[in-house]
């Protein structure tokens, strides 16, 4: 007796189940990963959305209160180091933009400092304030990205 068709059904069910799990998880967990200029350009559609924003800490704007573990700062676009930049469609911003970030209840990251590049995870609220659930610092530029963070 040829049992092959029945096996294809079993295998197919497993593959379908995996596909469903992936599709479902994509719908519920994906978030935008944007630069500061991109956030500025799409501000209207991003309200309340889960975001990751890559930007640079604007010097002179940082405020850290260790008692309440509250970190406030502004992020500005990271200057484009790749002059060619052909692979990314630049979102044109005519003027310098910045967003205020408030992170509460989290310790200040080790390498957090004015002028450092950070990735902020959180939601964009009214008045352009990003309420951060996490602030991650990227390695200083002299290190190539490698087995870290």
């Amino acid at each position, binding site marked *: 007796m040829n*049992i092959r068709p029945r096996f294809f059904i*079993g295998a197919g069910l497993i593959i379908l189940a995996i596909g469903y799990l992936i599709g479902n998880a994509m719908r519920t967990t*994906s978030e935008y990963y*944007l630069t500061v200029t991109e956030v500025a350009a799409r501000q209207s559609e991003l309200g309340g959305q889960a975001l990751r924003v890559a930007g640079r800490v604007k010097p002179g704007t940082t405020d850290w209160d260790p008692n309440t573990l509250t970190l406030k700062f502004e992020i500005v676009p990271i200057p484009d180091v790749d002059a060619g930049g052909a*692979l990314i469609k630049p979102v044109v911003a005519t003027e310098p933009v910045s967003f205020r970030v408030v992170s509460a209840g989290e310790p200040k990251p*080790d390498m957090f400092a004015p002028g450092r590049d950070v990735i902020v995870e959180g939601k964009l609220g009214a008045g352009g304030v990003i309420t951060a659930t996490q602030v991650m610092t990227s390695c200083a530029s002299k290190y190539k990205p490698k087995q870290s963070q």
Partner: protein
Amino acid sequence: MPELGNLALAIALILAVYSIVANIYGARRNAPDFVVSARHAIWSMCAMVTIAVVVLWVALLRSDFSLEYVATYSSTTLPTAYKITALWAGQQGSLMLWTWLLAIFTSVAAFQNRRRNPDTAPYALAVLAGVAIFFLLMLNFVTRPFDLLATIPAEGSDLNPLLQNYWMAIHPPSLYIGYVSASVPFAFGAAALITGKLDDGWIRSTRRWAIFSWFFLTLGNLFGARWAYEVLGWGGYWAWDPVENAAFMPWLVMTAYLHSVMIQERKDMLKIWNLSLIGLAFELTLFGTFITRSGVISSVHSFTQSGLGPYFLSFLAAVTLAYTALLIYRSKQLRSPAEFESYLSREAAFLFNNLILVGITFAVFWGTVFPVLSEAVRGVKITVGPPFFNRVIAPLALGLVFLTGIGPLIAWRRTTTDNLVRSFAAPVAIGVVTGIIAAAAGLRQWYVLTALSLAAFVMGTVLVEFRRGMNARRHMLAEPPAKALVNLVAKNNRRYGGYVIHVGVVVAFIGIVGSSFFRTEVKKSVHAGDSFTIGSYTLRFLGLSEVDTPHLASATARVEVLSADGREITVMSPAKLFFIRAQQPATEVAIRSTPLSDLYVVLAGIDDSGQTATFEVFLTPLVFWLWAGGLLMVLGTVIVMWPNVRERAAIATVLSRSSTAARELNDVAAPGGD
């Protein structure tokens, strides 16, 4: 000296090219002299790459900052041990490590096959040399380890502080050994496709390589997780970061491969599947090296910046295309006459285990590359974080654990109901009782209850197997229990070593479930003398002490840990470090580990007066068992790899059927031959 390094790399490239030509010519024209000459070329290539590696090591140890690599990744104050590990801290050095390992493994494979596999070995060695050529081209022309600086700095920039850690010293080499040794089974699979010798000879010849590779991939992943746990200071060990995923995917595929080849060896089925899996495993090792080294995942920008990206991707595409073409070309000959006979068979259990493993691999791959795909296709980068991976993989892991219990006990071909009851009644009972006890103890999450029950079920199956085997020996050979156990494992090391690995996987799984579901966290700023609580512990901040050395400055907090009844348990010393050369702070976590839970204390910040400190404290249940399970997996793999007299005899029997029997039998039976 740097000239010597450059010269050695250039000669190695030429030798690799020559070895391909000589191997293929020798095999096609039946000219053994050329095959011998190719072998010598491979050994010489290995010697040349070794020279290059030694030159870089000497430069690192002598702090020769005229070399850009040394100036970038080392400094005069860097401890000697980390000067040695700085060899794989940067892109050039780690690619050279890759090449060096490949050259060594190719040489070993050439030695092992100097009389064996005369039809296929030359092609396999040619494939390996082809891979070496790609890496040597990179080292010679694209990312050169021996480039000089125009002006010699007085001091180097130092090794990234995150890498100045014991685990980070041993994690990359382990992972790379695992990556690179997967090339050997791949090369023999490719050789089987090229020559059309499509029996399971390529699998048997490289079985040890595959296990060796899996062993080091396991170690690499564990060391990486341990490093993240001790160094990154966020209380976890796995964040589904692209570089972690890159190490995890080949492990998953090699796990699938090690199981499915058993079906081919036993039933002569799944030939196409096995060849596809080993191809996939090799491609994923390239992909892994590519994403850890090109930074493509963090941004499409760095893809173009690093310079390596396009080359790697082209090579990966070329390998995939060529290998797929070979598979299609041979697909008719690869059809198997054997069929699956029943769902209730070991073949079926292994097949489903394979589908789940490959499914998990695909999910991990998808989650890893999706940001880049969405950026390239839609112009918007959309990321998925740990929740995506957890949501997809958690249920699949349950299925996998279930099959871990089923697979080894269920019969080949088909199983009778009688048989099923006899094998599984006790384990199922153990699983159900465990679930009930856990529920009675107050656990309510369905996932945790299922995981615990399944884990107990798997342990039950292994116990049943060990008992059955030991009883048989005790009755037939009248051996005392301890001797029966030792002999049982020694005589069937592949099988019982496999069970030990399964127990390790399940124990690690329990550690993962416990630490994921029940971790608690407290963040607190306190003055010296003040205390706070987490779980049943009270932590009192006693004060700070500071130490300065030329290499790093450190501030260490003394934290007294008290139990619920006020008894002092220990004093922990989390620290904040500042690396002088790199001008970079880092965290030294303090961990108190017990089988029940880990107390994990991070000194997150200190104020300028030195009187107030911010702590982040995690209480993570059962994480101890993740490492214990890892250790069991390592132990089990050692048992599996242990040389076995019976197996040698079996290989000899197989070989004696072939024409060149007498010569090869000698070769195989010789110690160290396989």
